[in-house]
């Protein structure tokens, strides 16, 4: 607090001593003459965006900035909000704690790897933020992390500090472990059916309710001993209190329906249905509960519960007033979410801005970060991507990606970076330790194994997509 007061004092003095412009020039960026797709108030031609201290300060024509501002001429180019992926496993060193049916005590924030190259590749496709979710082997899985892809920064800078906390739930084929056969001597994990899956969740919330009661009694001085802290039930109490968002993986509409009913029974809201490939079958019921749906644009038939998936899903949900986001669940697919949004216009005819919202503002709303990001509006974080053409065009490419006004991807720097990397590689290859086998060096070190599959069901993590 004292530091804060001091800091404020220093800033105040600076403001008095110098001109306002020079104080703000510390972090000022002016994007000139772009086609700006706001994802909130339409598309603006020949428009400038002034960024000050990481926030969008002004949007308009012929804006001026201080002389020290970084000026980006975006003539002929498109600026869109940074893409937000509401379902990703990028930068996660582990995906799924699959041993128990309820793993609400586990936290994705404990396994984040800020050096995962997937982050840079996502930035190069205009993605600035993501919901990093636990896998789906458990009816109640671990706690998710909402991050911005601040490549090169320490891991704690990635986490969006004021994002509401959340948790992963799952239903269907993955939770009943239908693709996972216990080896000799292993006991199958409960549940093995959709019936059991629902009962696991019901049981957990009954226990959470009792646990909450014991704390309420203690706080009301009805009991003398404080209850023992329960890391499994505490997050569920937060759900009951409306303080934790539930992101529920599922495919078939009947399992969504069962979960929505169970949530009604316990008095909480499901923030988002993840995948929701059959959500279109019960769109009105989902709309009534103000539950969002985060879907693939058009993936289908890769497993049985995805067989009734249709690319018109987004359109039907949108028509019913459901908040729809389009996610990747994949380090590969995250690179072409712009094209996935474009497909939504084709299948049913979602209007352009609403399609754009499905990869920007809508996921921000589902994650509870829409006050700070997801659209190009004054006061919001300057999380932007600059495209060579309309982002829904297949021929479009990202030139620059900015998060809070800082550049995290700049294609014009790639040539130099590649040359530097090549030089570094040549130097390293000459080192004794890196010589090829049989040519005198010590054997090369085998790098740590990467995840092989990028959707939830990387086989060794025991999750599923």
């Amino acid at each position, binding site marked *: 607090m004292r530091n804060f007061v001091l800091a404020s004092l220093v800033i105040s003095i600076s403001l008095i001593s110098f001109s306002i412009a020079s104080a703000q020039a510390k972090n000022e960026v002016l994007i000139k003459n772009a086609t700006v797709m706001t994802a909130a108030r339409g598309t603006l031609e020949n428009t400038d965006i002034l960024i000050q201290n990481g926030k969008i300060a002004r949007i308009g024509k012929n804006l001026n900035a201080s002389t020290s501002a970084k000026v980006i001429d975006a003539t002929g180019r498109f600026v869109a909000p940074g893409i937000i992926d509401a379902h990703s496993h990028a930068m996660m060193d582990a995906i799924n704690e699959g041993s128990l049916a309820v793993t609400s005590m586990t936290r994705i924030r404990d396994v984040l790897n800020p050096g995962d*190259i*997937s982050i*840079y*590749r996502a930035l*190069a496709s205009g993605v600035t933020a993501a919901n990093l979710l636990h896998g789906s082997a458990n009816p109640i899985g671990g706690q998710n992390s909402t991050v911005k892809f601040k490549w090169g920064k320490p891991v704690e800078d990635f986490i969006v500090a004021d994002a509401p906390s959340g948790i992963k739930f799952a239903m269907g*084929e993955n939770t009943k472990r*239908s*693709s996972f056969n216990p*080896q000799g001597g292993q006991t199958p994990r409960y549940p093995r059916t959709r019936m059991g899956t629902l009962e696991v969740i019901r049981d957990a919330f009954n226990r959470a309710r009792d646990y909450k009661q014991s704390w309420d009694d203690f706080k009301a001085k009805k009991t003398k001993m404080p209850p023992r802290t329960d890391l499994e039930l505490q997050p569920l109490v937060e759900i009951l209190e409306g303080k934790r968002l539930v992101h529920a993986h599922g495919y078939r509409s009947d399992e969504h329906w069962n979960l929505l009913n169970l949530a009604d029974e316990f008095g909480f809201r499901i923030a988002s249905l993840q995948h929701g490939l059959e959500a*279109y*079958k019960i*769109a*009105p019921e989902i709309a009534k509960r103000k539950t969002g749906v985060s879907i693939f644009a*058009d*993936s*289908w*038939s*890769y*497993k*049985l519960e995805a*067989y*009734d998936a*249709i*690319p*018109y899903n987004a*359109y*039907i949900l949108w*028509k019913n007033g459901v908040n729809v986001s389009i996610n990747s669940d994949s*380090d*590969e*697919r995250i690179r*072409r979410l712009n*094209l996935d949004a*474009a*497909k939504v*216009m*084709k299948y*049913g*005819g979602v209007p352009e801005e609403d399609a754009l919202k499905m990869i920007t503002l809508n996921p921000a709303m589902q994650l509870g970060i829409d006050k700070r990001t997801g659209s190009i509006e004054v006061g919001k974080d300057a999380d932007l991507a600059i495209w*060579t053409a309309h982002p*829904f*065009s*297949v*021929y*479009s*490419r990202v030139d620059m990606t900015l998060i809070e006004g800082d550049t995290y991807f700049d294609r014009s720097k*790639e040539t130099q970076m*590649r040359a530097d*990397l090549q030089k570094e*590689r040549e130097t390293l290859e000459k080192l004794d330790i890196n010589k090829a*086998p*049989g040519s005198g060096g010590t*054997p*090369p070190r*085998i790098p*740590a*194994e990467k995840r092989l599959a*990028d959707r939830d069901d990387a*086989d*060794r993590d025991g999750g599923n997509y």
Partner: protein
Amino acid sequence: MSFKFKVQGFKFMRFGIYLCLSVFICGHAILAQSDGSQQNKTGRGGTFAITNVRIVTVSGATIENGTVIVQNGTITAVGAGTAVPKGAETIDGKGLSVYPGMIDAGTTLGLAEIPQGVNATMDVAEVGTMNANAKAITGVNPHSSHVNVTRVNGITTVFSAPSGGIISGQGAVINLNGSTQDEMAVHSTAGLMINFPRISTFGGFGGGFGPRPTVDFSEAIKRRDTQIEELKKIFKNAENYSLAKDTYAKDKTLPYTTTDLKLEAMTPYIRGEKPIFFTVERERDIRSVVKFVADMKVKGIIVGGQEAWKVADDLKKNNIAVIYTNIYSLPVRDDDAYDFLFEGPAKLKSAGVKFAIGTGDAGGEVRDLPYHAGLAGAYGLAKEEALKAVTLYPAEILGVSDKLGSIEVGKMANLVVTDGDILEPRTNIKYMFINGRLIPLTSRHTELFDSFKDRK
């Protein structure tokens, strides 16, 4: 009921903007549901004239305003001043473009309905390492939902091929229309598939968690070399076998060689009459394919081909084309440039290697073929080349360019009429012809859409 009205009726249903306006439309909607979504409608033949249309011939110049005539399955006229034959059904192509149907040269479409968890629907990989006699054309399900879902996005033809073991079997070029495999077939045994032995340090799946076991690199090289030697032995056996069969045919006094279906199937391939498709990605492995092709004097094609551009000179020298299936793949190494695989086709083009772009998909996402090509276009490949990479080039590589791949008189009428650039995701397909039949633009997906779009 005129043809044109039917199409408009269909549009009503798709977009849900209007209520059912006529008995016909309602009737059609009910039919669509009771039809069963597995059943592929095979369209209808006849004489058709697509008039006032922009004709993207691919093989020649684009005709800004012309007519294409389709008769008995064939393109019979293309041009600006073409007369419409009497009795032809006319499609007004004003504001529209007609393209040759797209061809995906790298799929297992029809062999894999539900890849994960439903083995009963999987017919991709036979047991064992040598299955030259396994033919995709006998495994493809003409009534697969992947057929109708894929074609309504403008893909009229695919190369579908098995992928198991080392010699996987023979792939087929099929049109995405037909009640039988014969009706679908354009070239029922178009190529032999080989998963070429490669250097792999894979040491099994291991148990439970933790890193997977690996074998020593020098051990991996030995393993690869042994496999190549075994493969060469199979080729040698097949050569001896066909020689023995031929000799016996000429002189019945010689000992008879009993028929071996697997070796028999190899004959046209070891003789270089038909191409062998080698699935391979890395530079070093592609180099060993080139050597194998030269040593064995066979006709080779690379499938996959991540680093094929690095071997451009050798590929050109040996007339080896590349079916590039890596647009939707992640670069293998962390320090590869982020667009390393997006740029593959552009690099192949500038190196002068013959290439096509395929999805490499099992079926569900083959319909994304135009976007694979388009993304290559975003990363250095000229737009016209991107289009050729999914039309004319695959037709040439698959040996069917006499029938497919461009809009030319005498070719099979596989045509797609669009309201924009066929490679763009926002473009809508308005009409399509396969083998001269006008195909309804319905699919498992439009039928489910119709069933649920108005549910309150």
